[in-house]
């Protein structure tokens, strides 16, 4: 019987940092032929680690951080984004993208769609969309919208397809507006844009195509989330940032990445993804990940389903004329 343990995801941080550092340097200077790197700083562990790795690879004077809050962002994101830039001594700028989003009618389009489900939804209400957990039962997982009224009442209702698609399409303006701003600064400085997805996000499709999915290079897309934490600690990412829960910071109600997309705690998902890709059997790893065999089977099915859905997000434009 082959099983999985947390030890399997332990890495030699010094060796891995050296490897990534050399690769960033080569890709930015030789392949992309750019003079530095631009990074969107969300105040989270992934973007902070990428900034730190770019500093090691290119030098702090060749790394530029952009903090891009909008009116629904948590104030903490700006605070931790600033801290990330200061910690590694890089230049940074705050670009508030609220007016860009208002110009694109991001909030208006989303709110109009939500009102189709919850007619009372109005100014002062807050919203997020959530998926049921994958561990609880066999249910097919469809999104619900959760609304909090100003008096604290919470309303949760399943969204029909047109509402769901419109809410997501409108919210995706946020990731795309940020990427537009990153490329503006990259063009201005003749730098490349660093992407910040970790392995879970990259492989399972937790990104917006041509939004946070776009970048010139992605230095941590091969790292499991637990490996991101190991490297972040080794490289000196501030403890405040390392201890911050993973959030989407996309909707007006606080929303964890788990309830929005991943459906199980990320540490467990790391182990399940690793075991799945090593061809291990659910029954063999269930005890190690503290789940039942049936739950691991569901997680495996969810991984496969997310990978299928992620294919479109990863696809480059198809050239119709080519054979």
């Amino acid at each position, binding site marked *: 019987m082959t099983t999985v343990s947390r030890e399997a995801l332990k890495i030699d941080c010094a060796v891995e940092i050296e490897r990534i550092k050399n690769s960033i340097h080569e890709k930015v200077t030789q392949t992309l032929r750019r003079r530095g790197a631009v990074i969107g700083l969300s105040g989270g562990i992934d973007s902070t680690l990428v900034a730190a790795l770019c500093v090691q690879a290119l030098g702090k004077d060749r790394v530029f951080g952009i903090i891009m809050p909008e009116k629904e962002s948590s104030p903490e994101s700006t605070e931790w984004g600033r801290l990330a830039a200061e910690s590694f001594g890089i230049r940074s700028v705050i670009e508030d993208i609220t007016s860009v989003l208002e110009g694109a009618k991001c909030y208006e389009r989303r709110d109009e769609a939500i009102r189709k489900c919850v007619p009372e939804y109005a100014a002062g209400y807050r919203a997020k969309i959530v998926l*049921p957990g994958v561990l609880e*039962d*066999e*249910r*097919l*997982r*469809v*999104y*619900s919208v959760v609304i909090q009224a100003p008096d604290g009442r919470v309303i949760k209702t*399943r*969204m*029909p*397809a047109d509402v*769901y*698609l419109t809410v997501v399409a409108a919210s995706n303006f946020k990731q795309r507006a940020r990427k537009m701003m990153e490329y503006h600064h990259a063009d201005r400085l003749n730098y490349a844009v660093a992407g910040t997805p970790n392995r879970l996000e990259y492989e399972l499709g937790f990104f917006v195509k041509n939004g946070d999915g776009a970048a010139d290079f992605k230095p941590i897309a091969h790292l499991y989330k637990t490996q991101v934490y190991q490297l972040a600690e080794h490289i000196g990412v501030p403890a405040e940032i390392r201890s911050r829960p993973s959030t989407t910071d996309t909707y007006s109600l606080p929303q964890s990445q788990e309830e929005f997309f991943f459906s199980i705690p990320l540490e467990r998902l790391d182990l399940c993804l690793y075991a799945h890709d090593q061809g291990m059997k659910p029954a063999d790893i269930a005890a190690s990940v503290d789940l039942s065999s049936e739950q691991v089977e569901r997680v495996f099915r969810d991984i496969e*389903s997310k990978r*299928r*859905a992620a294919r479109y997000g990863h696809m480059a434009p198809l050239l119709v004329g080519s054979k």
Partner: protein
Amino acid sequence: MNKCEIEDKLKEFIVETFLFGQDSGLKSSDSLLKKGIVDSTGVIELIDFIERTFQIKVEDEEILPENLDSIDHAASYILGKQNR
């Protein structure tokens, strides 16, 4: 509507919506998810269609593979709901 008629309506919707009108030998027992015919957005569209066409309310706890993952299963589920 009997089970055959429900299956016909479901098949017509699935072929038109998810298979661009190409039947491709879709069988009533085929798993819509395993065959990649219906994705997560497709599940919502299928639920919308069922609620609209057969005038039933699909409860959250009923969104199960055994109720929705094939034309056969969905038709039995719809019939069961209508007869309640």
